[in-house]
């Protein structure tokens, strides 16, 4: 059987098998332990034996890391109580075991609404555990390339990481397209306009806006190489949040808002950034795009 090379098309478990060194992923709380959601059954809704996330240890180019992969096919990767607790446990154990990095394969619409407050608390605990890991010297690398993107609480978790790697097909935002349309009307945002959705939330715009640090093609080996380089870049470096870094981020966001806040469409923003042939950016292959963005992207 030929290997699937698309990251987007792969399931969470296929990603763990193909992204890390062959056969190296060792799962904590595997499906056979049946640690399932205590809430879904009460709502007469289907459960998954892993509650939609696989966590464990793996080797990445010979370096021991901890890894988690959310399954977008199960409830859009939404975070429930158990799902969140598995992520928190992984991040805390990463601190105890002082691993080189934690690599999160994020694919999630955010909080699992069925689990209400338990889901909301779970997501906030993931954020806290992630920042604690950074403070304790463990860098966190997030990969976003699944078809469900990284939205809601998991969008925030993603932006708490040291490095975010995206494909153009990956999406990263707070409110999802349908949520914006429902709340503010189709004139504000047409969620069925797929080109608009990807222009606004897809990897290229995030890269230009400084929301992700690396962009790769939708290819398993490209994601693997980017994750490996990101982990290597933090060897011997502190991944902790600093006041200087936060101040710099705040200045970047202020600058972004004052320069682009009044513009309606990402194409207008790319034009204002002096990107050549702004309207054709969605058509560029990843290498030409990176070259064109090199001196113009935020945070470059």
């Amino acid at each position, binding site marked *: *059987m030929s290997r699937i090379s698309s990251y987007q098309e792969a399931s969470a478990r296929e990603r763990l098998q193909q992204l890390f060194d062959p056969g190296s992923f060792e799962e904590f709380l595997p499906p*056979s332990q*049946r640690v399932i959601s205590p809430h879904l059954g009460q709502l*007469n809704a*289907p*459960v998954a*034996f892993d509650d939609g996330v696989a966590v464990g240890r793996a080797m990445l180019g010979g370096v021991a890391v901890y890894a988690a992969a959310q399954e977008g096919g*199960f409830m859009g990767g939404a975070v429930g109580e158990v799902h969140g607790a598995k992520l928190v446990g992984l991040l805390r154990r990463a601190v105890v075991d002082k691993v080189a990095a934690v690599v999160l394969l994020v694919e999630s619409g955010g909080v699992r609404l069925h689990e209400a407050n338990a889901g909301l608390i779970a997501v906030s605990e993931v954020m806290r555990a992630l920042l604690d890991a950074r403070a304790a010297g463990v860098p966190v690398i997030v990969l976003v390339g699944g078809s469900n993107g990284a939205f809601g609480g998991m969008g925030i978790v993603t932006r708490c990481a040291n490095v975010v790697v995206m494909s153009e097909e990956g999406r990263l935002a707070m409110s999802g397209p349908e949520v914006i349309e429902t709340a503010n009307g189709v004139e504000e945002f047409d969620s069925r306009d797929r080109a608009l959705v990807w222009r606004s939330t897809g990897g290229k715009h995030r890269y230009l806006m400084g929301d992700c640090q690396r962009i790769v093609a939708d290819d398993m080996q490209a994601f693997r190489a980017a994750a490996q380089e990101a982990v290597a870049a933090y060897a011997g470096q502190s991944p902790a949040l600093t006041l200087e870094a936060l101040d710099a981020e705040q200045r970047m966001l202020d600058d972004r808002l004052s320069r682009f806040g009044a513009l309606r469409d990402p194409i207008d923003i790319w034009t204002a950034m002096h990107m050549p042939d702004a309207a054709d950016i969605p058509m560029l292959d990843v290498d030409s795009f990176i070259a064109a963005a090199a001196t113009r992207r935020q945070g470059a």
Partner: protein
Amino acid sequence: METLNYRFEQGTRRLTAPPEVVGVVGSGNLEVLIEPAALDGACTIEITTAAVGFGPIWAAVMRDFHQRWLLADTRISINDMGATPAVVSLRMDQAVQTMLGDA
């Protein structure tokens, strides 16, 4: 939701690999967890499905599955979200083949 249980005797093929899960609990799909278990030579299948009222069809699909593989001392657990019989059969074969190492 509906829970269905099946137990088949007279199987001959024992699996020794660690438990495996295949498939995803998404619309029209299912996950199959397959694991070796001491069951006095039987193969048991527990299905939790979102589609209520399809017991006779499940029974037929499970009977066919057992005749194909004749598993013994094997526990199979399924979380289903409305998969069609063909998808169920494919996933279950995939689960066995993964255990046998030739998937």
